[in-house]
């Protein structure tokens, strides 16, 4: 019974998170990166003060983990074309120089630390591979249509 109640709390917290915070982040890629940033690298636990104050820390953590897994599944389900669009939009939203962004993402591969814990290796490998291809496509576009430097 307690487990069932707790699961209901988690579902409620996840719904709250989707309606308040994640509603402003429509793209799966942005959601994945945002939710990964809510996770402590040392413990693997997620933290969200607002959600924890409305529910409990444990419930908030599980709700964030649920939403993180959901964003990951959505991104894995995207076509390559959609992933390229999402990455391009994300790159623009960071206001970073495109060349710097692409170089950093190719070298550091930050998407590798953005996947949820216990993701199955095949799905993770597939997504990493798609990111690599998407980056190559974006880079090739820049070579084909270089951005004119502002005078």
């Amino acid at each position: 019974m307690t487990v069932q109640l707790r699961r209901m709390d988690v579902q409620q917290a996840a719904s709250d998170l989707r309606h308040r915070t994640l509603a402003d982040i429509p793209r799966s890629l942005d959601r994945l990166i945002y939710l990964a940033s809510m996770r402590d690298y040392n413990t693997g636990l997620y933290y969200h003060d607002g959600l924890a104050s409305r529910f409990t820390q444990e419930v908030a953590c599980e709700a964030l983990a649920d939403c993180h897994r959901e964003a990951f599944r959505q991104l894995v389900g995207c076509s390559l074309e959609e992933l390229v669009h999402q990455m391009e939009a994300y790159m623009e939203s960071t206001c970073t120089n495109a060349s710097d962004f692409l170089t950093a993402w190719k070298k550091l591969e930050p998407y590798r630390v953005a996947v949820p814990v216990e993701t199955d290796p095949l799905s993770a490998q597939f997504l990493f591979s798609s990111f690599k291809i998407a980056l190559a496509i974006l880079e090739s576009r820049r070579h084909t249509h270089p951005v004119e430097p502002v005078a």
Partner: protein
Amino acid sequence: MIQLILFSLIGALLVFALFFAMRRGPRTEGSSKALVGARQALNSLQAGLLPPELVERIFAPEDYEYVVSQAPKDVRDLFCAERKKVAIMWVDQVRQQIRSLMRFHLGSARFHAGLSFQTEIGLAVDFGGLLIACRALQVLLYLRGAYSAPRMVGATAAAAARVCRISEESLAFLNAASIGGLGDRSAGAAHLL
């Protein structure tokens, strides 16, 4: 003298019988491990490797068409190499999990599951055929890339799903409650279903 030899032989036989009986003890534990291993293999296949949406994504022809229409040759080559790598990984993992399930059926299933002799024979044929198909598919993907055998990919995934369904029936008695005592990890795996 003959009596002494006879009693010695009987004594030796009893010692051997005792020795084998003692060896059977750990088999119970090994058998429960086999059960949990089979359940995990089944989970991995059903939740991770065989969902149609993942298989369709890995082998999606529209991704190939998009890259061909949008990207230069070096990116096309990168795309083909990456998809080939993932496709081979997929078949390899399906094969590994099928082998794990097959080991369970060969070794332990008859002690736990009420499978009929006909079902067991059918399952053995399915396992054998599936392992051969996986190996053939791996070679084909390696030689000709991820988009070389879409029908074979579909047929292999369907055959693997069929084997999973039969295995699931034989493991149906193994619910979360019954393996709860085997540790959190096992319970978690069963809970996933």
